[in-house]
């Protein structure tokens, strides 16, 4: 941890101020080499970033001496006021001066390893280490305190009420209390299940599912989607996580492109010569369109556009996309100008992906689109908690199991185990343990005694 790292610490693509964060022993020296303002510990100062003679941006910069900083190392933050382009230029300059590009989540990781994080932050420790960007960590934390936690708390309250009834039925067989019937049990479980489902389906869960900017790669079979995928994967040093295909027939990879967390959705898995399967392919492509922040559409440049291409294009209208006219190595029978006319929102690149030609242009384009704010960053970059989704799903499954058992009129104490599992799963998301919650409720709501 002795080197100095740097990265853009604000959300990509947002207008206004962008912050470049530098952390490590050389942070101060780097700043003094590019900044003409006064450098004082913990004082924000005004000045300009210079590259040699050239002014790059008008900025406010601050130097925070270790350990009183986010990472507990020497930290510099440069608030750039200009465009995304100048922000990028400043970053490149910082890198040129000796900083290394931070790995995803590396600031937070350093903060954690240096013992800088307090407990409320450590709540998401596991996520933090896996976090794709510092930004996603912040969001995870705010989410824990925010509406997600409120909603989960709400569902847990329902489960708790049910558990209390079940518990009191089991532990106080002689008491004069309302007996739990299977009908009541089932109807309560149904309501709970629906709420969990809604959360999974709904906007909150939608955000959570995302691991980064979602880029859908679409095109007819054999057009070069796999080559593109492989090309991008090869280029990006770190495959951050490998997510098992959540959609059965698509390949999904999380990659880091120029330090941007990108979630690639490739529909290559459906390639087959069989016609019906190709139709499924189109369906999958549509799904990918709808969920993506950004679309890469590949056409086979060695032959005229087909009906299939036409159909995909009809879905592309009005969407931000990047069109690749591929297989330039074989031939060029698709006119890029015609395409540009038909897809005014798109950028077009001619590629020969099989040879790796065009990959870096594609990366440039993705970076430009994102930093330029052209891709709405929506919430997709912000949230990436696979663990939460997993726990939500488990809770849903446990409730389903309990429901099935109630329908079969199985013993209450066995059903209770699954209900309690669901309660625990949700508790894990918001960091609450079961402890004495159930018993406390039992005694406050029922009159029991010997």
């Amino acid at each position: 941890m002795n080197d100095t790292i740097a990265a853009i610490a604000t959300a990509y693509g947002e207008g206004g101020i962008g912050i470049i964060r530098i952390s490590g022993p050389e942070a101060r020296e780097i700043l003094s080499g590019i900044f003409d303002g006064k450098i004082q510990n913990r004082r924000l100062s005004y000045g300009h970033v210079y590259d040699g003679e050239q002014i790059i941006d008008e900025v406010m910069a601050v130097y925070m001496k270790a350990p009183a900083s986010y990472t507990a190392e020497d930290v510099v933050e440069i608030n750039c006021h200009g465009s995304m382009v100048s922000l990028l230029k400043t970053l490149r300059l910082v890198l040129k001066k000796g900083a290394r590009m931070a790995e995803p989540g590396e600031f937070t990781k350093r903060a954690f390893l240096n013992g800088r994080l307090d407990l409320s932050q450590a709540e998401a420790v596991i996520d933090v280490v896996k976090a794709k960007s510092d930004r996603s960590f912040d969001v995870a934390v705010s989410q824990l305190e925010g509406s997600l936690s409120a909603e989960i708390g709400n569902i847990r309250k329902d489960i708790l009420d049910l558990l209390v009834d079940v518990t009191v039925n089991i532990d106080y067989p002689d008491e004069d209390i309302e007996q739990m019937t299977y009908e009541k049990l089932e109807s309560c479980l149904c309501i709970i299940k629906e709420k969990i489902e809604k959360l999974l389906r709904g906007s909150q869960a939608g955000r959570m599912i995302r691991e980064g900017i979602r880029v859908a790669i679409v095109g007819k079979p054999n057009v070069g989607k796999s080559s593109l995928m492989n090309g991008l994967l090869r280029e990006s040093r770190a495959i951050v996580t490998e997510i098992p295909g959540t959609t059965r027939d698509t390949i999904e990879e999380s990659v880091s492109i120029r330090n941007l967390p990108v979630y690639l959705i490739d529909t290559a898995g459906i390639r087959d010569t069989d016609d019906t399967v190709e139709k499924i392919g189109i369906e999958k492509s549509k799904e990918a369109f709808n969920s993506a922040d950004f679309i890469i559409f590949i056409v086979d440049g060695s032959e005229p556009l087909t009906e299939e291409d036409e159909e995909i294009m009809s879905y592309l209208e009005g969407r931000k996309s990047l069109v690749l006219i591929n297989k330039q190595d074989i031939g060029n029978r698709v006119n890029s100008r015609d395409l540009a006319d038909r897809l005014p929102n798109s950028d077009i690149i001619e590629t020969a992906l099989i040879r790796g030609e065009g990959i870096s242009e594609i990366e440039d384009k993705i970076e430009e689109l994102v930093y330029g704010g052209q891709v709405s960053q929506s919430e997709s970059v912000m949230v990436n908690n696979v663990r939460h989704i997993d726990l939500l799903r488990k809770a849903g499954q446990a409730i389903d199991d309990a429901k099935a058992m109630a329908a079969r009129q199985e013993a209450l104490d066995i059903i209770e185990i699954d209900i309690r599992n669901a309660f625990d799963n949700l508790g894990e998301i918001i960091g609450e343990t079961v402890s004495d919650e159930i018993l406390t409720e039992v005694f406050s709501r029922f009159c029991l005694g010997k």
Partner: protein
Amino acid sequence: MSMNRFEMGTYDIIVVGAGHAGCEAGLAAARMGKKTLMLSINLEAVAMMACNPSIGGTGKGHLVREIDALGGEMGLNIDKTFIQSRMLNTAKGPAVHSLRAQADKNQYHIEMKKTLEKEELLDLKQGEAVDIIIENGRACGVVLKTGAVYRCRAVILATGTFLGGKIFIGESAFESGPNGMAPSTELAEKLREYGLPMRRFKTGTPARALADSFDYDKMIPQEGDEEIVPFSFMNDDLTKDQIKCWLTYTNEKTHEVIRRNFHRSALFGGQIEGVGPRYCPSIEDKINRFADRERHQLFIEPEGLHTDEMYIQGMSSSLPEDVQEEFYRTIEGLENLKIVRPAYAIEYDCIDPLDLKINLENRSIENLFCSGQFNGSSGYEEAAAQGLMAGINAVLKLDGKDPFVLDRSEAYIGVLIDDLITKGTNEPYRIMTSRAEYRLVLRQDNADLRLTEKGHEIGLVKEDRYERFLEKKEIVEKETERLRRKVVQPDAANPLLEAHGSAPLKSAQSLIEILRRPEITYDDTEEIDDTRPEMSRHQKTMMEVQIKYEGYIEKQKQQIEKFKRLENKKLDPDFDYEAIDGLRIEARQKLNQFRPLSVGQASRISGVSPADINVLLIYLEKVRRS
């Protein structure tokens, strides 16, 4: 006032108190070969059931079975002396079937006393312990009120409600042990003097009244079960003429009388400083807290066969006697009630159990073991379970052996002790099935399978019990295997299945599959199954539950494995948690104070959050890697 002290002898272990905890502690210590002295303020108080005349119930019945499986006495003693037996919760699943028996209180006391008297290495003596001799931070003797000094190597405290006992009846309050026994006040002072973290808890008991003053026509009879299931694994079939209990209800008039006299209750008058249990509120507490309830139920239970006293379950109170008489008599069937012992509340001294180690030894005074109500629990069974564990662990400590610890996945005893010593308690602690995470495995039918081997290893389970257990285990395994292989044809099985409202077979199936159907019992299938071995009730029950719930039990066993992973991550008790920066200050302090032995235990300490545990785990991993 200084008393002339004189030496009266030396023992390995001295147990202070002869209630349910003391009896198990003394017997365990003596049976494991230690010369043991048991002291009681009054020998009439040996195994005294100072409150309800019953043993068992939800969770508690499980404890009794576990005590029995480890070679304890409670199960055997209640089997000798019960006068009504019921299996509760039979409709709610195998894990929560709970045995409860009404006891003949006096007989229970007499039988237990006989057992103590017969135990070879055990001496039972009447005497009030007034001081614990502590040398070099180690308990090594007990001083009696008479000046007698007994030396020993370990002391087990089982003082119950005697310690600092104070009874409240209405406006009156006086120092007293339970049921009019003398209190133990000097010892209470000494323990505070020695710096033990003492506190006041409270409990209460209802009035006793004469049997012929009730009108039974106005009450609902509660019969015992036809088929009697014994508590002890050593008993197979018991037959007995059983007594009836009776059910009746309070009414608006009762509530009105009580409300009118709230101001005369010790509870609301502010005289009682002790904390009472939520699950055992007095009747005035119930009426105060649940004002909208139109009625509360109560059970009338005989105290024994040779007494006319009846226990009025559900109606404990600290109201004055005149009010008691007035409100009891508003109840249907109790109009002419003749009270012979008034209801009272009792306050007593106990220790904060967080001051105990996992073997129930005190953290600051070595070889001082603690058990029962002294540890903040409530109930005969909870007391007995801790007494047994304290007895066993005192012996192991003296022998220089590792402590005997049951974890939460092994026994309700483990849940009970782990809860007390890691979470602590703010009220008298009662076991409940919902406190156990792995209930499906911690059943009462398999308590011997879980524990008897362990009991044998430490030398408490003797050969007769052990052989009986091995036989049960073997026959159940063999018979389960046979049922797995035994194939039944549809023609043979279908008439039987139809008769029990079960779907007919379409093709041949193993008998074990048929037994998984909830509506079919092992005994039902006897007619389509020849070559069946002779099996006892205990054997059949365990086998049947294991077969019927195999899938769920497996699921739970996987959860247990997960749980064990954290339990098996050991922590050095000398570790300094201040060294971990990521931990919150509260967590550091708590961990430094409790010195957990495993990450699992750390995770249950109150004030240590799941996030702290993550920080701890990451730290341990970092250390491991470097």
